């Protein structure tokens, strides 16, 4: 049976087909010695030999900084205007199956009762095309959190490398429509997909047990927290590269006469994150902040939003200046 395929040589045509309709084509590309998700205009820009991009593609759904309202202040007047969300049709190409799995939880959070249209409108206009991994490194741990390079959760279209082509599998309706809309670019043929590379499951980690242990509230004041996370320096690097971290700040910027209100990424690792005006800080010590992040990943985020709190992409492990490895903490909590 002939399968739907995409020839690698036709990537340029796909980009043209998307951008020709006014869309935005986002793909991993090389920038300052790193692989980064960026808007691309031609196939030459796209990196093919990579494990993961440095950034998660979340920034195309939930930008690092965005204006939500603008205001002009007169002597006795205030003119306040909401801002329309900038949500162009977007194709995220070359995402990895792990990071795509973050979308379910993100959607649940941003639509929990109040609907954040800055997120949902972008989400509606975004097609996520994942490519199964043929490479992994020692920081990858998707298999440990019950995902794998073969998982299609969150993806609209799932591709696999097959020599000079990709095999194409439309997962969602949105994905099917996307393939149809650009039918001229996709071909059919019978190709054999390259083998996927499965990161080895970390033997001592039992995800169910981690979540069970976290539910038992007595762990909260356990000495194990300061001991495990003593080296944490409290930068926010892990949270900023994490595909499921989505905490933000709302700030006003401008002059005495005009300005804008912005929604900016923030990090639970900063001590000012929860600092009260009175000076009281519910999470005063770094280990408490770290504990919160861990709890968020493996306890309350999955429970509340039935999404994945951690997708095992390993970005936080790679980026950590002191190599504080989340899997080592998971190991401790699997005991």
């Amino acid at each position: 049976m002939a399968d739907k395929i995409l020839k690698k040589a036709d990537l340029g045509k796909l980009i043209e087909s998307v951008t020709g309709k006014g869309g935005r084509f986002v793909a991993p590309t090389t920038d300052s010695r790193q692989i980064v998700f960026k808007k691309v205009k031609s196939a030459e820009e796209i990196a093919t030999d990579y494990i993961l991009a440095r950034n998660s593609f979340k920034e195309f759904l939930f930008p690092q900084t965005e204006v939500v309202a603008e205001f002009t202040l007169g002597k006795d007047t205030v003119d306040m205007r909401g801002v329309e969300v900038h949500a162009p049709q977007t194709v995220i190409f070359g995402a990895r199956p792990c990071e795509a799995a973050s979308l379910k939880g993100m959607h649940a959070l941003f639509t929990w009762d109040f609907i954040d249209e800055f997120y949902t409108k972008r989400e509606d206009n975004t097609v996520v095309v994942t490519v199964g991994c043929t490479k992994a490194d020692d920081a990858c741990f998707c298999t440990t959190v019950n995902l794998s390079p073969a998982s299609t959760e969150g993806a609209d279209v799932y591709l696999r490398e097959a020599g000079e082509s990709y095999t194409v599998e439309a997962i969602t309706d949105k994905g099917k429509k996307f393939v149809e809309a650009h039918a001229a670019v996709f071909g059919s043929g019978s190709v054999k997909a390259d083998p996927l590379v499965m990161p080895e499951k970390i033997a001592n980690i039992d995800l169910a047990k981690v979540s069970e242990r976290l539910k038992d509230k007595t762990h909260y004041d356990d000495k194990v927290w300061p001991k495990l996370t003593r080296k944490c320096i409290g930068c926010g690097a892990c949270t900023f590269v994490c595909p499921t971290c989505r905490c933000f700040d709302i700030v006003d910027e401008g002059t005495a006469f005009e300005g804008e209100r912005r929604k900016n990424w923030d990090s639970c690792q900063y001590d000012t994150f929860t600092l009260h005006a009175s000076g009281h800080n519910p999470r005063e010590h770094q280990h408490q902040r770290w504990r919160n992040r861990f709890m968020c990943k493996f306890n309350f985020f999955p429970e509340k939003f039935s999404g994945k709190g951690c997708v095992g992409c390993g970005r936080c492990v790679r980026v950590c200046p002191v190599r504080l490895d989340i899997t080592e903490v998971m190991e401790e909590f699997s005991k």
Partner: protein
Amino acid sequence: MNNIYLPNLVTIEDIYEEAPDVRSFRLVFKDPKLRDTFEFKTGQFGLYSAFGLGESTFCIASSPTRKGYIQCTFRKSGRVTGGLAQLSIGDTMGFRGPYGNHFPVDEWKGKNIVFVAGGIGLPPVRSVIWNVLDRREDFGHITIVYGAKTVADLVYKEELKHWEARGDVTLVQTVDPGGQTADWKGKVGFVPTVLKEAAPKAENTVAVTCGPPIMIKFVLNALLELGFEEESVYTTLENRMKCGVGKCGRCNVGDIYVCKEGPVYTAAEIKRMYNDF
């Protein structure tokens, strides 16, 4: 587009100086339709904007029984509250809300109520007090225990006088040792101690408390000692918030998002939470 971060414009109709650096605003919506239709429940909070400086979270200190306006009380302590403190009558600010859950006042029909507040913790309680006083006949005995660091720091001084004079409310006022003035007629001592001395009956009574975290902790203990049941002691958590709508991720106490599942909790619920205050 429905923008959940866009505040409504409100006009400052009146300003009351409550205590050093503490001020109340009486606010009315600029939009006349919203002015007529706006509803909230006692215990809910809002986000108040000083444009160019940001948003700050405080409770709505007025009672939902008083229509047409809302009142907020804040202490000047940071960037936003500092900016708000510079506004004068007639100025415009922003308001988003109401958010969060509320005190189940309707469930308290026929019960006695004890209010325990410390310092700037009175405003959230005030909303309940007026709500209850406006339907006085629905409730039994009402006791208010209120304390502050010094006499000057007591907020709502006029209303305290009014409550004292009403006759259908037992008001116990106290200031911390050293905070009294020569003509101070109230008690001297910390709120939890004074509460224990006042010893309101626990039977068929609910308690509502708010104040600094450390005071709440001791007040809860004192109430339990007096025989109150954990289910009938209520408090409101005032965690730092930015969005107010369960997105920004900073108000959580373990798995509980205070802005959406709170800010009002019973002592029993608090006891079940992670120790993350």
